Structure formats: C-alpha cells, structure tokens
C-alpha cells in the first residue's frame, strides 16, 4: 500500500515541508527538501524515528529533590514507553555530577544532566 508522510523538517530553521512516499516499508520518493540532511532526516523519520528522551529521577540527600537525565543517544520512538517504565524505577543518592551514568538500558546510557 502506498502512503505519503508529510513533515515539517526540523534540521534547520527553514522548516521545509517534506513529503515521503512509502510503499510496503520502502521509500519511493522524497519531495520538498532543500538539502541532503533534510532528506536523510525525513527518511529516518519514516523508517525508524528516534528521539533523545529526558526525565527526572528522585535523588536522596540532594539540594533539589530530583536530578534530570537524558539518554546518551536517540532511542527508537516505539521503545520510549518501555524506557520510561524502566526510568520510573530508578533512584539515586547524592552526590551526582553532570555527566555521571546513573543507569544503562539496552546498551543506552542514562546520563545525569543536573548535579545533586
């Protein structure tokens, strides 16, 4: 089945309207992009979109009650709910420094972005 996906490209502030035409999981055509990075991004968005995920986790004895964390790399979008359930179970103790790896999930590092 043929399907057309429409995006506003987020690679740069131009915000091109990009269309990706897909049939049976194969990209047939990309239209509307004005640079190769935009094309690559749009194809990635259709085939396997990925996101950096951020949340906060409780910290014991910190100046603030939480530290913020992010994934060290973008993770597949469909895995995000599973990752969030994993992150909901994590707690840490102060001191925590920015850049500390507080956990690992399927090979993805969970990195502190705020100290405590």
């Amino acid at each position, binding site marked *: 089945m043929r399907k057309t996906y429409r995006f506003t490209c987020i690679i740069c502030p131009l915000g091109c309207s990009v269309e990706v035409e897909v049939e049976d999981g194969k990209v047939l055509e990309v239209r509307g992009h004005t640079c190769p990075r935009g094309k690559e991004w749009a194809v990635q968005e259709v085939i396997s979109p990925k996101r950096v995920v951020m949340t906060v986790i*409780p910290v014991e004895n910190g100046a603030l*009650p939480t530290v913020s964390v992010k994934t060290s790399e973008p993770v597949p979008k469909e895995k995000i709910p599973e990752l969030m359930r994993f992150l909901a179970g994590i707690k840490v103790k102060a001191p925590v420094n920015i850049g500390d790896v507080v956990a690992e999930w399927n090979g993805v590092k969970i990195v502190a972005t705020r100290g405590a």
Partner: protein
Amino acid sequence: MMKPFPEVPMLSYDVVVIGGGPAGMASAIKAKELGLKVLLLDENDYLGGILPQCIHPGFGIHYFKEELTGPEFASRLAKRLVELGVEYRTSARVLEIRNYSDLEKFVLFTSPAGIYGVWAKAIIYAAGARERHAFEIGIVGDRVSGIYTAGEAQTLMDIYGVLPGKGIVIVGSGDVGLIMARRFSLEGAKVKAVIELMPYPGGLARNVMILRDFNIPLYLSHKVVEVRGKGRVERVKVVKVDKNLKEIPGSEFWIEADTLVISAGLVPAVKKLKKIGVEIDPATAGPVVNDRLETSVPGIFVAGNSLVINDLVDYVAEQGELAAEGAKEFIENSGTESRKWIKVERGENVRLVVPHYLSGERDVYLYLRVLKPMEDVELRIPEIGKRLKLLVVKPAEMIRLKLKAEEIRNAEKLTVEVTGA
C-alpha cells in the same frame, strides 16, 4: 549626596547584575573578565534562572557549539562564574533600584544574611520575563486548583518531581507549552488538547513535531474561555474564532480535564525599571535600548528576556556579554558620550526590532520578529540598500541580522521591513 537607609549595611561595586539566569551569568562573567568589580544577585536559591528546569536538549548550539540540555548550559556558565571568582548571592531579592546620578546607582536587596544596599556605577538588569496568566487571556469560571502556567508546571515536574495532573489541556502552542506537552506525555499524563488562538502554531517546528509524536490534538483558531469544577478543574470550554479572532457563536465544546496549563507567552519583567523612568517599547514590552543595550536611563543596561522575549538561550547569553561591554565603556568614560543616534524603525511585517538606536561605531546584531508567517520574502533596509532573501519567516522564530559598522555609519535612520521578494 543623600544617604538612603542609614541603618542598612552598604556594599560597593562597579556593576551590579540583577538576575542569575543565562543573561545575568554571561554578563557577570564578561564584566569580571573586563576587570570590573561585579556582584550578581538572584532571588532564587540556585543559579541558572529557568534553565535548570528545561531538561530537554537544544541549548547551546551557537554559544557553546554543541547541543546541551538547559541544566548543562546553566552549569557551564555557573562553573565559569565560580572559576573567575565572581561574587554572587542567591535568595537575594531586589526590592528597589534608584538612580541618583550617572555613576551613582543604588540597589536595595533582602537575603538570608539580612538586608543590604549596594552602590554601583552601572546596573545590568537581567531579571527575565514573567508568564501571562489565565486572567490576562480572558479565561473565566470557577476558582479551582489545577490551573498552572507552563513554567510553574515545569518547576513542579522537572525540579520537584511532581506530576501536576492526569488529564491536561494546554492553552497556547508556544515552545514552553509544547515542551511541557512532551514531558506530561512521557510521564504518563494524557494531554487532551493544545488550544491555539492563532491560525498557525506558536512554537519552533522542532517542538510542533512533539504533537505528532504523542498524538496530541492541536486546535488552531480556538480559545479556552471558561473553566468549571468543584475544588479542582473538571472541564474547560473551548470556542472557535474567526480570522479576526472573534468567537464564533455555536462553536463551543467542552473538554474534560483535571489540569489547565497556560502557555500564553512571556512578558519582560521590567516593573522596577519602569519605576525609575526607563522608557519602554510597546512592541517588545521591554526597554528602549542603544547598541550597548543601555536603556534610556544612562548606566542601566538590560539583557535577555527582560530586553526582548528570545527563543534561543544562545542569543540571551550573547546579549548579556554585550551589556557587560557597555557597562565597562560607560564606567571608563564616566557616562555615555552624546552623539547622533541612528534610529531603527519597524517597517512592513515587522512586529519588533531591537536595539532601537545604533551608534554606527560598532557592528551590531538586530533581533527582530515578523507580524505574520510568509514564504519567499526579502528582509530589506532601504536606507542602506541591505537586502536578504529568506525562504520562510514565522513570528515564532526570531531573526538575527548582523550589520557592520561601515554599512550603517552614514545612515540617518534604518527601516527594517520583511516583504514579498
């Protein structure tokens, strides 16, 4: 000279920086590097302003040449501040600013250590902005809990780890609202709708994409007019508007929700500046400034969201540095030299532009926003024959334009316009 508050301990500095967010920290760092004796004051109990609660990536691409989260951006500046030995006080709330003469400014502040007065030769005001609240955008109804501004909801969630509600309606599709839509969704709350008054989304494209990621309905040309509930928000009334933003009778519908989040824009927090007579530009709601970011009161400088609402922290930090250079020059010259200023005026499809006056002696960045989204346009300054093609312009995306001193030196005034090519 009159001595105010004889019983209050007095401190003395070259420059006082009010606000410890990115603009304030960047300016305090720059001021110290330029050899000034500087004191930074922030009313919060930690430095960074709103950055520590902006836990998403996307900061620093221009300023640090790498992509950081908000807390990481803030900690880089804080680290530099401490390395340089910049004096700062947190939980320090400024009560009053007084301007006695060009080189005699006075700041009164409270702190856990007591009340203090500070004498300074210049002030850099970087106190950020405040959020528009429900009453300002005409939402009526029951007095219930569960109504937050986006920034309040962000503090609750991303500093204190408290989810503000389970079924959420967001008013406004600006960046903060969209970013909160993602955070609510990630943490398991249901974002029922984002309601936008204008016929186009208010945020950057990368943030509008969040709506698709989490299947959040966006209602363009709609507004929330009423909130109902017993003790807590239970439902909100939404109505469609026409192209003149007038409510269309009969288009009302209700959405059930326990939380209403207002993301209806920011307003520069400049009350204390107005009190000492600083001239305000109605277009930015911030001070009128020259190319050193000096306000109409000599020796009072402004940077960041107190100057103009920015969408990139990188520009905020850049403005902080510029204000510090201005303060240094001001103190060295014992005031601002009188000169003929080149006035910058708003032309077609330009909603705001800063700075307002240029000396023509230095290169300058103009920061501007358009009135309405357009494609294939030209940014023009006819007086100097400047033309710049732009494929897309949107009110949500600030345009930054560098002008060289030699381009503008001989101009009487500059009119900035964005029109069809």
